[in-house]
């Protein structure tokens, strides 16, 4: 029932996610953040089982921090993405698989490139210009296909994002009250204004 969406530009990646924390038919929280900073240039948006998501994301965050302390430099986006992918691939082959889908927004400070990784709970990974997880993806991907260009500005990306949200509001059965929006660029991870549907 969650929805996460990522759009990559020339020098940034925008990630947005719904803020519902629900169990079955009960909505526990409407302002729950499901994004986590893994390091200064890595942002993880998780969808799926809430408890699994927290366990998974915090464990990954601490290991990525440990890497940084051990080696004296940040884990690069590619390394982190593959590490996360392997973690989920191992998890699906274990007795208690994690039911977590991930969008990883990264800025590689060495190659100076933004990256967006689509990783799902089975451990499949794709490097993409834009992506979405959840039922909402079915509504959003067509819209972004229509309007996306690699050279679009952040404001243009945000307006495409808003188009998707309007569509969800209109045609998707689940009501998302607000969306958490963050952006990753060379300066780090920044919080943008919440989008209220």
């Amino acid at each position, binding site marked *: 029932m969650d929805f996460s969406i990522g759009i990559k530009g020339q020098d940034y990646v925008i990630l947005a996610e719904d803020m519902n924390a629900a169990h079955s038919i009960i909505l526990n929280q409407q302002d729950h953040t499901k994004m986590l900073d893994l390091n200064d240039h890595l942002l993880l948006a998780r969808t799926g089982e809430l408890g699994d998501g927290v366990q998974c994301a*915090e*464990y990954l965050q*601490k*290991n990525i*921090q*440990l890497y940084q*302390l*051990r080696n*004296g430099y940040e884990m690069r986006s590619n390394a982190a993405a593959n590490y996360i992918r392997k973690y989920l691939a191992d998890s699906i082959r274990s007795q208690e698989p994690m039911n977590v889908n991930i969008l990883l927004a990264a800025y590689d400070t060495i190659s100076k490139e933004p990256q967006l990784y689509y990783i799902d709970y089975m451990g499949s990974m794709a490097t993409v210009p834009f992506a979405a997880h959840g039922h909402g993806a079915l509504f959003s991907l067509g819209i972004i296909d229509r309007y996306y260009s690699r050279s679009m500005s952040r404001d243009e990306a945000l307006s495409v994002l808003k188009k998707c949200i309007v569509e969800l509001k209109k045609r998707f059965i689940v009501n998302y009250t607000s969306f958490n929006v963050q952006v990753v660029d060379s300066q780090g991870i920044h919080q943008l204004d919440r989008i209220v549907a």
Partner: protein
Amino acid sequence: MTSRYDRAITVFSPDGHLFQVEYAQEAVKKGTCAVAVRGADCIVLAVEKKAVAKLQEERTVRKIVQLDKHIVMAFAGLSADARVLISRARVECQSHQLTVEDPVTVEYITRYLAQIKQQYTQSNGRRPFGVSCLLAGFDKDSDTPRLYQTDPAGNYFEWKADAIGRSAKTVHEFLEKAYQDDLVADRVGTIKLAVKALFEVVQSGSKNMDVAVIAKDKKLEMLTTDEISKYVSEIEKEREEEAQRKKRGR
């Protein structure tokens, strides 16, 4: 592993000594000197850099290491042993935060390292770590700088200023005489005292010193050789003036 080693290496002597631990402390005394001074708002770690062989790359010798974003450690003794402790401490810092969400306090991680060291003085087939550590940092929600020291026995104490390694006794005596609260009230004063203390041992100057400053919520700052040279020349000048004054005074 322990089933194959059924003999303890660290055993009591008839007069109550643990000789292996004392020998480990001797090993520490052979290591290069590390000095730490706790100021009012920062901690300064000054370590002696051993001269590297001609063909060796200098930057692969690290005596000041970061355990976590807010905790730094300097050590004296066997580097390889220190590496093991550093690795364990780094993992524990993250593990603690994963479990309780809070970053470790300096005391906690000191106690953790001390516990490991003690275990190695009381286990089959293991020898004690030949390392003494100086741990510096700030606790979350506190502006008080903290400085702790651990030894191979697994003892740990909090210090205002401390030295470990080669000629630590000389530096201790110097610090006991020189340390004043108002001297270390600011960053510059604390750095100066730390460099002065290390200077008692490292006569050769700024090339053989590494100085690090730990301040609240700031990244670990390693002083450049030029910055250290400035302090060293200031200290040398003061010493000369002091010597002149003594001569004239007579």
